[in-house]
């Protein structure tokens, strides 16, 4: 991993974007890495666009300001494109992972993704509805996060997810993680 990897998670209040950022960081810490997670602080409001951040590094992370130029964005809800500039500040040659039922080419065209951005798409809503019977996509998106970056191992994320959601819920969420990992497809970027 280069010096520091910064991720911005976009969701709506109640969809678990904050939890997803947290779990990604717990996984990194478990693997002995340095990591930091925090939400865009404020009164929680269901449905309102929310942003969460996570940082990863092999060295202690000193910086404590917000993330302005993420290496990666993860979009839990595709309707956010209408309301929020999710790509703001995304680094050239960065990565984007989007939960969508549309193909990648469609997303690229519609939202003007530059060619140097590696775009991953996954129908996390379908996965969540199939396995969890609820459109809560945060755990599925963690699978996509692992596939996109390899910053943490899939098994570590699964352990962390199972610890957060005990028993049957843990198993189901773990299944969602795995399925999203398998089903996320990438286009663009440097391959």
């Amino acid at each position, binding site marked *: 991993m280069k010096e520091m990897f910064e991720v911005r998670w976009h969701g709506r209040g109640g969809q678990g974007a904050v939890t997803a950022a947290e779990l990604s960081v717990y996984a990194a810490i478990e693997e002995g890495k340095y990591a930091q997670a925090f939400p865009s602080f404020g009164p929680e409001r*269901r449905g309102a666009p929310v942003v969460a951040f996570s940082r990863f590094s092999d060295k202690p992370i000193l910086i404590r300001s917000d993330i302005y130029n993420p290496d990666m964005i993860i979009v839990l809800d595709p309707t956010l494109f209408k309301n929020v500039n999710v790509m703001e500040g995304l680094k050239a040659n960065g990565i984007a992972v989007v939960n969508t039922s549309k193909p990648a080419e469609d997303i690229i065209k519609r939202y003007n993704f530059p060619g140097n951005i590696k775009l991953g798409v996954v129908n996390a809503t379908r996965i969540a509805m199939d396995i969890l019977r609820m459109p809560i996509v945060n755990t599925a998106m963690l699978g996509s996060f692992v596939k996109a970056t390899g910053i943490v191992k899939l098994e570590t994320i699964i352990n962390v997810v199972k610890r957060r959601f005990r028993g049957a819920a843990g198993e189901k969420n773990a299944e969602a993680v795995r399925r999203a990992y398998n089903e996320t497809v990438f286009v663009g970027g440097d391959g």
Partner: protein
Amino acid sequence: MNEFKRTPKPRVSELPIAAIIPEPGNSKYYSTGDWRSVRPVINKDKCTGCSLCWVYCPDTAVIKVEGGKYDVDLNYCKGCGICAEECPVKAITMVEEGED
């Protein structure tokens, strides 16, 4: 007193004294429609104009339209679904906002 400017990033010189809001009812300038992931669709043929949706909407996002019927102001509707729940003739369906 400075004329109140509806800007999210006012300058010191643009703030009214004590940072009060001197304009009544200005919450209408804050659009919460983008919080929504499902929206109500009212079938005007089924609608009887009973106004219960208007009564129950917590956001005053239901408005009276011609013919004594009702419709939704999508600038404010947060998609809570209470109107659909309360409509006595089931004239309201909640539809996914979807990606289109």
